[in-house]
């Protein structure tokens, strides 16, 4: 049977691009190819940009309250197709069905939050800035924007941006990750049901050529990127060169500190979720477990015991607690980090290299734990993005804070403690800008900004929250005097 082939969505129409190169889409749980994705070129990007640019003047004149109504309609469509979106996502990305449902929920929450545009896009004014002169500040849409999302959240991440761009009056282009294009393809099929005006929202599938085509295009005003730090830096630099607005979110190396006064038994379930949720492929995943003082032995024993019992398997199986990683190549990459950890002298106390699974052809790894990792080791410094925990034992809280602040990747940090003073000192002093207190996944909801610091985030406006309304609008100041 022929595999499904993804198509671009440009100017309200599905189009098969005229290309010769196609990528393969895999089911990580079975190791089987399930679809093909066209590698579009700068020509298709240009076609989408032209459609979006032509749609912009009319779209920006649609009253915000009416633009919000499209989002209300979209929410309904997404709710009705919630399970279908979630299952498509599991199939191509590998995470568990619960994790997938959580992701789709987050996607919908962003659609919900965007409907507050009538308040959130409001400007401000002040009478008599000088005698008889009034001043007001207005927020106006800018034009065509684009988004380049990662593989790990194929449903949610584009929707950190899309609904806000649209409700503020901009037009948009999404380039789904070529590793997981099916979810967004399906979502665009659903979007057709709400009859957005042609050209307002477009999708171009592809890889590097599409990315570069977007970065180089003079009529794209801004780019939202989420992915690895090297690419985030590249995007940031290129957008700077071409004068685009940019919010470029990179990688992470998140520390989870456990103080001696922490309630370990209550905290363990969320610790496990932090490190092994989505098989460690989250920018909010715990990467370094940092027990402070005498709690270390008990914590590591209990953590390893429970981690070893997690059921690894196909995400569509309701009993599975950890799915595969996204691809064979990514599995190899994580395996290389495990070999590096062994070679550099860390103690491999839980070995997940050969998990017991029903379909070994899938890209599975089991929960893995290294103990006695030192700050200089590679596995304590670099982003692994897999189910590998590096335990770095700390003498005191300050040492844990210093460790977090010297990783470069300052995305998130968590602390488990019963002490308000320790929690306060931790959140006050750590550089990472998403902090969890007795929470292992410090995931801001749609009404708060999402993004890190240091090498985890390039740009000034984060995703979601108020930031994204600022990113997608220009502040115009009007000073009035009437004779």
């Amino acid at each position, binding site marked *: 049977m022929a595999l499904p082939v993804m198509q671009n969505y440009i100017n309200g129409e599905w189009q098969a691009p005229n290309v010769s190169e196609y990528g393969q889409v895999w089911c990580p749980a079975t190791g089987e190819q399930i679809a093909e994705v066209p590698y579009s070129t700068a020509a298709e990007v240009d076609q989408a940009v032209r459609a979006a640019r032509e749609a912009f003047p009319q779209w920006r004149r649609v009253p915000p309250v009416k633009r919000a109504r499209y989002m209300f309609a979209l929410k309904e469509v997404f*709710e009705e197709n*919630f*399970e279908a979106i979630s299952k498509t996502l599991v199939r191509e990305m590998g995470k*568990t*069905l*619960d*994790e997938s*449902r*959580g*992701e789709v*929920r*987050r996607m919908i929450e962003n659609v919900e939050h965007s409907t507050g545009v009538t308040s959130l896009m409001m400007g401000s004014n002040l009478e008599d800035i000088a005698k008889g002169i009034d001043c007001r500040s207005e927020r106006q849409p800018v034009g065509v924007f684009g988004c380049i999302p990662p593989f790990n959240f194929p449903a949610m991440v584009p929707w950190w941006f899309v609904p806000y761009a649209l409700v503020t009056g901009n037009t948009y282009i999404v380039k789904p990750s070529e590793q997981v294009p099916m979810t967004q393809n399906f979502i665009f099929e659903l979007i057709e049901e709400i009859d957005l005006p042609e050209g307002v929202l477009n999708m171009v599938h592809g890889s590097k050529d599409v990315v570069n085509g977007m970065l180089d295009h003079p009529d794209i005003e801004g780019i939202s990127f989420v992915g690895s730090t090297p690419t985030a830096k590249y995007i940031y630099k290129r957008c700077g060169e071409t004068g685009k607005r940019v919010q470029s979110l990179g990688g992470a190396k998140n520390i989870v500190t456990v103080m001696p006064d922490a309630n370990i038994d209550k905290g363990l*379930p*969320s610790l*496990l*979720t932090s490190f092994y*949720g989505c098989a460690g492929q*989250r920018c*909010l995943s715990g990467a370094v477990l940092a027990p402070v003082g005498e709690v270390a032995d008990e914590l590591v024993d209990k953590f390893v015991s*429970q981690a070893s019992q*997690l*059921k690894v398997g196909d995400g569509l199986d*309701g*009993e*599975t*607690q950890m799915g595969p990683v996204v691809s064979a190549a990514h599995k190899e990459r994580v395996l290389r980090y495990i070999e590096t950890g062994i070679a550099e002298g860390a103690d491999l106390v839980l070995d997940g290299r050969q998990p017991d699974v029903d379909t070994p052809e899938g890209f599975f790894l089991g929960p893995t734990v290294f103990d006695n990792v030192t700050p200089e080791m590679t596995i304590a410094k670099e982003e692994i993005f897999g189910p590998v925990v590096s335990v770095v034992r700390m003498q005191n809280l300050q040492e844990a804070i210093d460790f977090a602040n010297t990783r470069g990747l300052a995305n998130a940090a968590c602390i488990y403690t019963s002490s308000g003073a320790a929690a306060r000192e931790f959140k006050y002093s750590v550089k990472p800008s998403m902090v969890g207190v007795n*929470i292992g*996944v*410090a*995931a801001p*909801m749609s009404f708060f900004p999402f993004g890190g610091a240091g090498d985890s985030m390039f740009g000034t406006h984060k995703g979601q929250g108020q930031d994204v309304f600022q990113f997608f609008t220009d502040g115009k100041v009007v000073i009035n005097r009437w004779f």
Partner: protein
Amino acid sequence: MSLKNFGNVLDFAIAMEQDDTAFLEKLEGEVQSAEEREAIANCIRENSKAIKKLLRERQENVTEMILEPIQGLEKNQYELPEQENAGGHEGAIAQLLKREHRAQRFYEDAARCIQPVSEVATTFQRLGRQHKRRQERFETA
């Protein structure tokens, strides 16, 4: 077999309500008393409402922050023995009581195990109380 995931627990609850509904629908067609038939019809309506509520909970109350492994909920503790055909009407009512008791036990236990997702825990507690009331009503009838 353990119920270890949020979705898994909700799926079990939904399947249990559906299974109980099928049993009640069969029973409704067999009972003679109009009063009893009305009571059973009420239960079917309540089950239908519960299923919708549980589906909504599964869709709306799942977030990364609290998606933690669940411990201490064993599926086999809520399995009923093969239905006995003997006993006619009285046997069927006895079976109904067992089902109501099973549902009540499941919801009470699941509410304790799923505490981090407090909205769902509250729903489970409410459904547990509902099944307890129904069990008591049928016992005294």
